[in-house]
Structures are given as C-alpha cells and as structure tokens.
C-alpha cells in the first residue's frame, strides 16, 4: 500500500474539519487543534508497525468516509428492541450524534449525565481536567482523529460516595452507509462512587461505515466501575476504538468486552493503576466468522504497589476469520507486591481460522506474583468423552463445549437481560447441525 494513498486518506478526512462555533470553550478548541496537528504529522499504521503487525488495515485507506450528518427521522419504535430493561438511564447516539428524543435520563439529580457539549460551562473545569487527559493522541492517529472531530459524547460524572444501582446504557447506533462517526465517552467516578456502564455499538442494517470511538474512564480513590462493552457493528463496518482508564487508590475497575461485529475491528484498552491497591478485572470475548478480523490490544500498567489485575481473554474463530490478542502487562519498579494474572484461550472452529495471541509481560519489580498462559486449539477430547459418556452425541458435546467456552465470559456480565441476549448470540453462532 503506497504512502500516497495513506496520506491522502487522512488529508481527505481533514477536509471536513473546521473549528466549530466560536462560543465553544477555548480549551476545547485548543485540544482539537492540537489533535489536528498530530493527525497531519501521522500516517495510517501499517503491518510494519509493531503494534499493527497482525492487523492489516490498508483497506481503510480506500474508504475516506466523511463525518456523518445528524439524522433525525428515527423513531423510538425503530430502536426499542435495542433497549435493556434494567437500564433506567440511556443515552442514544445516532451515527455519533446525540439524540435527546431517543434518550432517557432519570437520575440527573444524583449524577451528571448527558451529552458533553451541554456541560461545557457548568462542568467546564472538571471536563478540562479529564477530557483528553487519558486517551493520549500523540502516537495514536485514531485517537487524534476522534479528538479532532470531538463534538457529541456521553458524559457521566458520579459524585462522591454516590452508588448508582442500575446500569447506564450508552447506545451507539449506526444507520448510514459510507460515513465515519466519532463516538466519545467520558466517565468520571469520584471517591467512593459506584456505577455500571454499558457501551453498546449496534447497526440497524448491514452497511459499510467507520466507527472511531474513544472512551476515557477516571476512577478516584475507592471508586468502583463496571464497564461492559459490546461491539456488534455491521459485518461490513470498520470499528476502531480506544479506551483509556486511570485508577486511583484502591479503586476497582471491572471490564467485560465482547467483539462480535465488524469486518475489521481494533480495540485498544489501556488501564493505568496510578496509585496503591488499585484493582482491575478485564475479561474479553471475540466471536467471529466468515472473513472478519478482530484485534484486541490491552495494556495493564502497574505503577504503584499492591495492585491487582486479572485478565481472561477468549476467542472463538470460525471460517476464515482472524482474531488477534496482544496483552501487555507492565509492572513498574515501584509496583511491589503486584498480583497479576492473564489467560488467553482460543478456540479454532475451522482449518482456515487464524489466531495470533501474544502475552507480553514487562516486569521491573522483584516482589510480584504474575501468572500468564495462552492456549490455542480445538476442543479437549477428554471433555468431549465426558459428555458422550452421559449420552450426548459427539456433535451435541462439541456444541455444548463451544457454547460454554464463550458463555463463561458472558456470565460475568452483571446485567441479566444483556447476558441472556448474548448467550443466545453465542448459542446461535456456535452450534453446527
């Protein structure tokens, strides 16, 4: 792929960029301007970049889709089937644009929740100290692009010691063909707060489009957040996502991310344990088929002592699909008594399916407990025999074990209706007849 095409792609995207209205905050304009500067000095990554060696995104260069325009004719009944019973607060974004008509906010007394631009004055200084502070765009062209085009986005700010029992649903719906959307989320959990958010990417129809999303999460001391991320885009779409998480003292971050859709998807999750005794549990499931490519890159960075991180990532790959997992764990010199585990388990359902998994441990402290393991393979014959000895046919045994392989991750989603939906999805995709 020539670099001319490559450069053209970014130039082409930037044509539609402009400093928006004059009334917006100058710090935000500055941030966007910095981002645009970075974009203009970067190129689309190629497989020569270490971080992209398994994932060829060159097809993207042929799709310089412009920013989506707001679309207003969608009605509640068009999207109701995507709602989750448990979620009393729901922010809906259509092709990246916030839709107040389709959103439901019930908890705005207890917490700050809504579309980012609405809070630029009321929450200005808070936003300024968080937005763009975790998801660095210096060497990430997609985060730079997202920040340059930053406009609408989900803002959730949970005040000190406030516990929000019901999950908050952030629903990003793709409706248009050949557009790029730039979803953005910011979650700020103050000291001792607790919240569950569901970041949900769906398409109303099969369409070719690009989602370039950035999520930032900041948890103050002893704050808890459960972050569920479902990527069920159209299988013709490109999904490029970055999530950056910053954990303060004794805070706790639990993440379950499920990748089902997209022709090519890439999810970067960076978690920094910036103070003592922070904890994170990071689980992931990739379930793909046909010629899909799904790449998950995670980095868990232990900066201070007594931190805990547990990660399990699973891939089920059928047909000629290709899954990538790169899990980096850094334990810095001061991060003594870190307890970290990582497991990457992968199931190939066809001969043409491909998996690249790369655990990457960088440990600079001496008093740590780190366990990691990776397996790639087919189902275990001993497990199949066990089920056959209970009367199940070989096919039924294989189906059950394949389902279970995926369902183990799904079972960690603390939202029952979503869990049931996804169990059904796993069931449908893993059963051969």
């Amino acid at each position, binding site marked *: 792929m020539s670099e001319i095409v490559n450069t053209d792609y970014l130039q082409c995207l930037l044509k539609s960029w402009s400093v928006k209205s004059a009334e917006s905050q100058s710090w935000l304009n500055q941030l966007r301007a910095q981002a645009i500067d970075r974009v203009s000095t970067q190129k689309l990554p190629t497989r020569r970049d270490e971080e992209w060696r398994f994932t060829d995104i060159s097809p993207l260069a042929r799709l310089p889709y412009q920013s989506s325009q707001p679309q207003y004719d969608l009605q509640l009944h068009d999207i109701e089937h995507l709602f989750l019973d448990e979620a009393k607060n729901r922010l809906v974004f259509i092709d990246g644009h916030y839709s107040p008509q389709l959103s439901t906010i019930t908890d705005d007394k207890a917490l700050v929740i809504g579309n980012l631009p609405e809070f630029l004055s009321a929450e200005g200084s808070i936003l300024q100290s968080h937005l763009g502070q975790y998801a660095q765009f210096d060497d990430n062209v997609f985060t730079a692009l997202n920040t340059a085009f930053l406009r609408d986005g989900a803002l959730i700010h949970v005040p000190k010691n406030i516990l929000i029992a019901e999950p908050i649903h952030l629903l990003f719906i793709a409706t248009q063909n050949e557009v790029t959307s730039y979803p953005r989320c910011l979650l700020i959990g103050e000291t001792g707060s607790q919240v569950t958010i569901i970041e949900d990417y769906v398409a109303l129809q099969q369409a070719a489009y690009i989602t370039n999303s950035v999520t930032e999460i900041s948890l103050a001391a002893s704050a808890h957040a459960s972050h569920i991320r479902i990527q069920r885009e159209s299988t013709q779409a490109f999904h490029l996502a970055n999530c950056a998480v910053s954990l303060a003292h004794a805070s706790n971050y639990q993440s379950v991310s499920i990748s089902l859709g997209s022709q090519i998807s890439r999810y970067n999750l960076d978690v920094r344990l910036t103070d003592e005794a922070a904890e994170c549990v990071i689980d992931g499931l990739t379930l793909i088929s046909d010629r899909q490519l799904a790449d998950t890159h995670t980095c868990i960075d232990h900066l201070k002592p007594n931190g805990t991180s547990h990660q399990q990532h699973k891939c089920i790959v059928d047909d000629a699909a290709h899954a990538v997992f790169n899990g980096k764990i850094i334990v810095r010199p001061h991060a003594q008594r870190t307890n970290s585990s990582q497991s990457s388990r992968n199931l190939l359902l066809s001969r043409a399916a491909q998996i690249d998994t790369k655990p990457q441990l960088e440990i600079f402290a001496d008093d740590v407990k780190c366990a990691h393991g990776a397996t790639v393979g087919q189902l275990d014959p001993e497990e199949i025999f066990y089920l056959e*000895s209970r009367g199940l046919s070989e096919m039924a045994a294989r189906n059950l074990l394949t389902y279970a392989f995926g369902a183990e991750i799904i079972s960690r989603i603390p939202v029952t209706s979503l869990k049931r939906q996804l169990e059904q999805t796993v069931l449908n995709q893993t059963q051969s007849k």
Partner: protein
Amino acid sequence: MIDKNSTTILSVQGLRASINGTEILKGIDLTVKSGEIHAIMGLNGSGKSTFAKVLAGHSAYEVTGGSVQFEGKNLLELPPEERARAGLFLAFQYPIEIPGVANTQFLRLAYNTVQAQRGKEELDPLEFDDFVREKMKLLEMKPDFLERSVNEGFSGGEKKRNEILQMALLEPRLSILDETDSGLDIDALKIVANGVNQLANKNNATILVTHYQRLLNYIVPDFVHVMQAGRIVMTGGKELALELETRGYDWINTNKQSVAGVTA
C-alpha cells in the same frame, strides 16, 4: 447381592486394549450379574482405570482382542453415547469442569437425552427442578449446586457427589465408579457410599475401581478382583480386600498361583 436367578449384565472375555501401540489390557475375563457389586483393586498402572474407560468407550484406547457383551449387545460396536443410553455409566476419577454451563442445564440435557432414547418422557426445566432436588437429598447436596457451573470450583467431594447424582438421574444398569474414593475425606466418603448403596438394587450392578480397601468398608462388594499388569490375577470375596490391606499387593505375587483357582 449374589442371586442364582439373576441375569448377566456384563460379560467380558479375553479383552485386550492398547494406547499408542502399548498394550495395557492383556486379556480380561469378567462376568457381572444383576444385583452384584464388584470391586476391582490394583496398584497404579495395573490397568484398572483403563479397563473402566475401555468399557465406557474412550476413543484413545484401541481394543485389540476379546469381546464384551452388555445386556446381550456387542458393547464394543457402540460409540460411547450409545453405551450410556443403553445403561452403562462411568463415574469419572477426574470429572471435567464446564465453566459457563449451569449444572442444572447440563444435568437436564443428559437426563432428557437418555430419556428420549429410551422412549420416555422428557422434563421441562420446572419439572426437572423438582425431580433433581429430590435426588440431591440422597447426596446431601445444597441447592446452589444447581446454579453453579458444572464442577467449576467444586471441591473433590462435591465433584464426586455430582457424579453420583448423575448416576441417580440416569438410572444405569451398570455403574462403573473409577476411583470415586480418591481425594475424599471420611465424611464425603460416607455420603457418596451411602448414595451408591441406596441406588444399588437387584436389577442393576456396580463395579468399584479402587486402590484402597477404605471404600469397601462402606460399600460391601460381593466380589473382589485384583488386577496386575493388565490382567485379573486373583478373585475372591470381600475378605480379599482386607487381606490386601494388611498384607499389601506384594503378597499377591507369592500367592496368586494358589488362590487363582477361586473364581466368580
């Protein structure tokens, strides 16, 4: 119990089997009739667990000789699932864990699969729930057992109880318990043994595969067979197990010539 009028459930003649070209079973003869409890004892590597797996149809083993009749059928012709449906049950030494599948889901699937094959009525989740809870009392199992993933995070005793629960649900004609006593403390052993005793009746039969005599204090066998190097080298009554316990397996080597004449 031994009964002259009972029917033969299992008839093994000259069974030989190998794994990866190495012969493990070198000619086994065994007859099991309804109502009987047999114990197969032997040191590690004697072939007793292999014998259990070959009967259940494990594909890693190749049968190289002999015959096995089960309820008048040629057992060796049947794939493992059909052996199970025909009424053969193997309680595993190391039951596998299936994270992601609730125990109740798995138990119902196994139960209904076997019921359907036997032309009997399948149960819906509610009906099954009542049914399985009744069976669980037999093994003093807590109700949360049903909602947990199959064997995941179960203690050794819980796994073995789960095996016997499956046996209770599937109502086999022949149960083979492979080292069911291993890894059990005395309380768990008593519960498991009590379950097995309650399930044993004049129409079914049980084979206990074990290294130690301990289990046989609680499940009293009608016959004790000693395996060595892939063959049954000695058969006797329940006293044989006690003899082994006090004298050790080495004793067999000096005495097998004289006692080998005693057969079932």
